[in-house]
């Protein structure tokens, strides 16, 4: 009896294991290994074949590449920080300040814009900000400005777009952890005379660290790997590292260098995630929830 049950369970193991194994191998592991292999191969159009480090050395030799790389990382950190600053008070309001009845409604409201495709969201911002955009028209109509101002196509508009587009991914995990913060702690601190800044710094933020960390990781990853927003809202000089990868693949047809750059992007985003988890002592399985 026991034996037959056991053999059946093994059989079910393979029914579950094989599809999962095929998914992970063919859609994730092998493609990434192939990416790594190709990044060490000479470009097929230049005639050099076989192993080479050329794709990686060109990254360090051409300032445009590593400068864009550094720029992308810097702006990604900046955007993540801004998003965090906005998300903390909003999350706190939704979990602790607003009436309980309103909470569900507000939760739904913050979600809606983010289920709409990122292209559409960015398009809305473009319609607002561009030279013939809604803001310019309204301000001109009221005589506040004399001639339209181009508010698009610079670093500031790009940062605004990236913040707008990733806010939700910071809000959801932070709301999750703030929900579990016992109001009594805040009340007690308040009764003991603590100022709001102190309550934030000593109670709310430390309690929210797991949520903050997963929010920061997701936002950073979404920003550094973003393509739409820098392409549509950034200026001529607001190039993003993903655009360089895209150009290598589509315009220059230099897949090997593109693969090397892609791998560099993968390494830096993994490093940041790893560092974030080390600092706060979390595991990947808790972060993704």
């Amino acid at each position, binding site marked *: 009896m026991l034996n037959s049950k056991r053999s*059946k*369970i093994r059989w*079910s*193991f393979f*029914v*579950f*294991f094989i*599809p*999962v*194994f095929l998914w992970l191998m*063919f*859609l*994730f592991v092998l*493609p*990434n290994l*192939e*990416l790594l292999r190709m990044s060490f191969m000479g470009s097929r159009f230049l005639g050099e074949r076989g192993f080479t480090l050329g794709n990686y050395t060109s990254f360090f030799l051409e300032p445009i590449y590593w400068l864009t790389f550094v720029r992308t990382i810097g702006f990604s950190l900046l955007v993540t920080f801004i998003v965090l600053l*906005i998300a903390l008070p*909003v999350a706190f309001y939704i979990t*602790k*300040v607003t009436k309980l009845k309103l909470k*569900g409604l507000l939760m*739904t*409201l913050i979600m809606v*814009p983010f*289920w709409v*495709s*990122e*292209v*559409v*969201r*960015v*398009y*809305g911002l473009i*319609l607002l900000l561009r030279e013939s*955009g*809604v803001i310019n*028209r*309204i301000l001109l109509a009221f005589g506040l400005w004399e001639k339209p101002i181009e508010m698009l196509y610079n670093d500031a508009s790009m940062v605004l777009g990236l913040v*707008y587009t990733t806010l939700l991914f910071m809000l959801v995990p932070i709301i999750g952890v703030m929900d579990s913060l016992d*109001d009594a702690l*805040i*009340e007690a601190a*308040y009764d003991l005379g603590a100022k709001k800044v102190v309550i934030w710094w000593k109670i709310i933020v430390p309690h929210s660290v797991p949520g903050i960390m997963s929010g920061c990781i997701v936002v950073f990853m979404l920003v550094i*790997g973003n*393509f739409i927003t820098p*392409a549509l809202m950034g200026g001529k000089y607001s190039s993003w590292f993903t655009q360089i*990868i*895209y150009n290598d*693949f589509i315009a220059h047809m230099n*897949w090997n260098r*593109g*693969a090397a750059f*892609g791998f560099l*992007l*993968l390494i830096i985003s*993994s490093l940041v995630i790893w560092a974030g988890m080390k600092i706060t002592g979390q595991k*990947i*399985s808790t972060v*993704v929830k």
Partner: protein
Amino acid sequence: MGRDENYRTKNQYGGEMIRTLHNKKSYKIGYNAFIILYFTLLFTPLLVISLLAFNDSIFPSLPWQGFTLDWFFGKGPEKIGIFHNSRNLKGIFVSFKVAVYVTLFSTTVGTCAAFLFEHEQFRFKNFFYFLMIAPLVVPGVIIGISLLIFATSIGLFLEHTIGLDVRALSPGIFLVVCGQASFITTFVSLTVIARLKKFDRSLEEAAYDLGARRFEVIRYITLPFLRPAIIGGAAVAFLLSFENFNTTLFLVGADATLPITLFTQIKDGSTPVVNAVSFLFIFCLSIFALLNFLITTRKTKQ
């Protein structure tokens, strides 16, 4: 429960850092203003898009020239509405098709993964769990290029060795589905795993004792329990697929999905037909969100 009611009575006194505490009026007003500003800014872009979809102008901008439905139903020659615009209609159709395939794949495999990691014991389980989570923290662009390279390499290999030209391995719908499924499956499996953790396994034991076989137990006991999570996961998978851009960008062939064709149109200068498509997008999602909201509030009331 007692605590909760306590909050509500205290809450009536108003001013608060949290619901229960008193605060200066200026703080309260400032905070509320910030939140109102936040929600206004959050929705302004979407409202502007929707509004300009009904503007009787050939540019998606002010001034307001009067109300029209031409950008939905117009037959041309000046204004070709969305329902006569083959490019956007095709985009919607392709996105829909891709989303259906991705949903089927990710729901099936994601549910298998949930059973595998929750109910089975095997060697290297932690390693495989890590592999399953990893697609979530890999940028979508990387998933796109790695699959493109992998598929091309296989295609070249097949062509050189057995002279077989496999069309599916060059950019197109098949690769788009593969690329999106590779990370969307993780989302579904995490949703199902969360629900499976709450499953009382003694129910299974009881069924075994009554003589049920493993797959009967799964079919009649575990799967019905998982149904809400599987449906929820499928809905999320569909939406994620429908709006995906980064992974799709590198894998798309001649058949552009909706986000890709919208991107090209916006980059090249758009007409309000883009607004009309976006409005339909926003409208459908709002209905979806509203239904979801009503269903969840009804559930919590019960």
